[in-house]
C-alpha cells in the first residue's frame, strides 16, 4: 500500500442552511485512478470541488472538517489557494479552452509563472500534449485557435494545460459527459496512460467508465459516502445494499 497523499476527515459542506456533504471520510493513495460515482445531486461533484477549493467561488458555502494534502490542511487560514491549485489541477465537464492558440493554452500557467525560455516552453508543450494523447492531432497547427478543435480534442488540450503546470493530483469533473463516445474513449485511454504518474480523481455518471478505468471506486448518496473499495469489489461484490441497488440500476 503506497502512502496516502490526500485525506479527508469529517468533511461537512453547507450551501446556506442546506447540508450537502454530511461528514465525508475518504483518503486517496498516491497515484492511480479513483472514480466517484452516485446519483445526481449526491454531492460527488461538490466533494471533488472541495479538494482544490473551487467552492470558494460560490457565496454562502460553509465547510467544516479537514482536508490534508501531504499532511497540510488545505483549509488552514495560512493555506495558499493559488499554490494548492497548482498542485491539485482540475478538468471540467465542459471543455473550457481559453480563446487563444493551442500553444498558448498549454503554456498559460507556466508563462504567467514567469517562464520565458522558449526551448523549455516548447518542450513542455510537446510533452504535455503527448501525455494528453492529442499531440499527433494538433502538432501541425499549434498556433491556431484552440476553439477550432473538436470537443474531444479541446478536452484533451485542457488536460494538457493542467499537466503543463505539473500537478500531483488531477481532479476531473465528468470530463466526458459532453463528448461523443469516440472522444470519450480517447479521454479514457489518456487517463489510463497517466495513472502511473498522477493521482487522478474522476467524477463520472457513467458506471461502465468507472469500471473500465478506475482502480478504486467510491459510491456517494445523499451527501454521504456509502462505500469505497477496489473497483472490482464495488461492481462484483458490494458490501452495502444501496451500492448494489445503484450498480444494478434499481435507482439513480
Amino acid at each position, binding site marked *: 500500500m503506497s502512502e496516502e497523499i490526500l485525506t479527508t476527515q469529517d468533511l461537512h459542506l453547507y450551501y446556506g442552511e442546506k447540508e450537502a456533504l454530511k461528514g465525508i471520510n475518504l483518503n486517496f493513495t498516491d497515484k492511480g485512478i479513483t472514480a466517484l460515482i452516485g446519483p445526481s445531486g449526491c454531492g460527488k461533484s461538490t466533494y471533488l470541488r472541495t479538494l482544490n477549493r473551487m467552492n470558494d467561488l460560490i457565496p454562502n458555502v460553509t465547510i467544516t472538517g479537514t482536508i490534508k494534502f501531504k499532511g497540510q490542511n488545505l483549509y488552514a487560514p495560512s493555506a495558499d489557494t493559488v499554490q494548492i*491549485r497548482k498542485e491539485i*489541477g482540475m478538468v*471540467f465537464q465542459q471543455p*473550457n479552452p481559453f*480563446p487563444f492558440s493551442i500553444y498558448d493554452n498549454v503554456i*498559460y500557467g507556466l508563462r504567467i509563472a514567469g517562464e520565458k525560455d522558449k526551448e523549455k516552453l516548447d518542450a513542455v508543450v510537446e510533452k504535455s500534449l503527448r501525455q494528453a494523447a492529442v499531440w499527433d492531432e494538433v502538432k501541425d*497547427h499549434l498556433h491556431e485557435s484552440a476553439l477550432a478543435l473538436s470537443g474531444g480534442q479541446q478536452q484533451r488540450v485542457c488536460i494538457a494545460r493542467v499537466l503543463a503546470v505539473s500537478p500531483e493530483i488531477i481532479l476531473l469533473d465528468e470530463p466526458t459527459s459532453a463528448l461523443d463516445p469516440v472522444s470519450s474513449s480517447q479521454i479514457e485511454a489518456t487517463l489510463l496512460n497517466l495513472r502511473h504518474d498522477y493521482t487522478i480523481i474522476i467524477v463520472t455518471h457513467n458506471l461502465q467508465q468507472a469500471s473500465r478505468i478506475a482502480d478504486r471506486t467510491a459510491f456517494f448518496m445523499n451527501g454521504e459516502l456509502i462505500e469505497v473499495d477496489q473497483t472490482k469489489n464495488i461492481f462484483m461484490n458490494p458490501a452495502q445494499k444501496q451500492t448494489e441497488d445503484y450498480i444494478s440500476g434499481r435507482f439513480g
Partner: protein
Amino acid sequence: MNSKTQNKIAIGTLYGVAGLVVLILLALLGYILVSGLPQLSWHFLTAPAKAFLKGGGVGVQLYNSFYLLILAMLISFPIALGAAIYLYEYARDNWVTTTIRTAIEILSSLPSVVVGLFGFLFFVVKLRLGFSILSGAFALTFFNLPLLTRSIEDSLRTIDLSQREGGLALGLSRWETITRVILPAAVPSILTGVILSAGRVFGEAAALIYTAGQSAPALDFTDWNPFNISSPLNPMRPAETLAVHIWKINSEGIMPDAKAISSGSSAVLVLAILLFNFAARYLGKRLYKRLTSA
C-alpha cells in the same frame, strides 16, 4: 375575430412601426447628407472658421472634436475599466454595490446640459480651469463614465464562468485570471463599446458649451509645444467642437453662409459617427475572429 387575423394584424402593425422608424431615420440622414455633402471640400474641412465673412471652414473645430474625444477617453476609460472589473469580478451583491449601480444608472440618465452646467460651476469656475479642453474633457468623462462602465461590465459578463474556473484551476490568482484570461477574451467586445461611446461623445454639444467654450482661436499647426496658447496640444485653451459649432451658428451665426456651414458641419458629424459605428463592427468582428478561430 379568429387568431389568424389577429396574428396578421399584429405582424402588420409591428412591420408598420418598424418601417416608420427606419423611414424617419433615412429621411433625417438623407436630408442632412443631401444638404450637407455639396458643401464639403478640402478647404471646408481644413480652413479655420470666419466670424463675419463667407468661406470659413471647420478645420479647427474638427481637430478640437478629436482632441477632446481622445482626452476624454484617456481619462474615462481607465476609470470605467477599473469600476467594471470591481463591480463584476470582485464586488459581492450587497447594499454598497447596489448603491453604486443605482448611482451609475442615475448618472447615465442625467441630461447632458446639467452635466455641462455642473462642469461649468466646478471645473471652470471653482477649479479655475477656465473654458478649456481640460474642463470639457472632465465634463465628458462624467457624461461618458456610466455608459462605458456598463458596457465594459456587459462585456465581462459575456465571458463564461468556465473560463474563470479554468484560470483559477491552473493555479492563477484571481487578478491573473482577470488580466490574462478574461480581459483578452473580452477585448473585442470592450473595443466595440469604447468606439460606440466615442461616437456619442463626438456628437455631444450641451455638456461642452459651458466647459470647453464656444470659441475656437486659430491654431498654429506647426507649434506642438503644449504650453503655447496657439498650439493644438494646449489643453488649457478654449476649444469649440464641431457639435458646438453647429449649435452656435444656428443660434447666433452672422456669417452670410451660416446655413451652408451648418449643413456641411452636420454632414461631417454624421459621417464621422457612422464611421465610428462601422469601425466598431468591423474591428470587433475581426478581433474576435483573430482571437477565437483559425
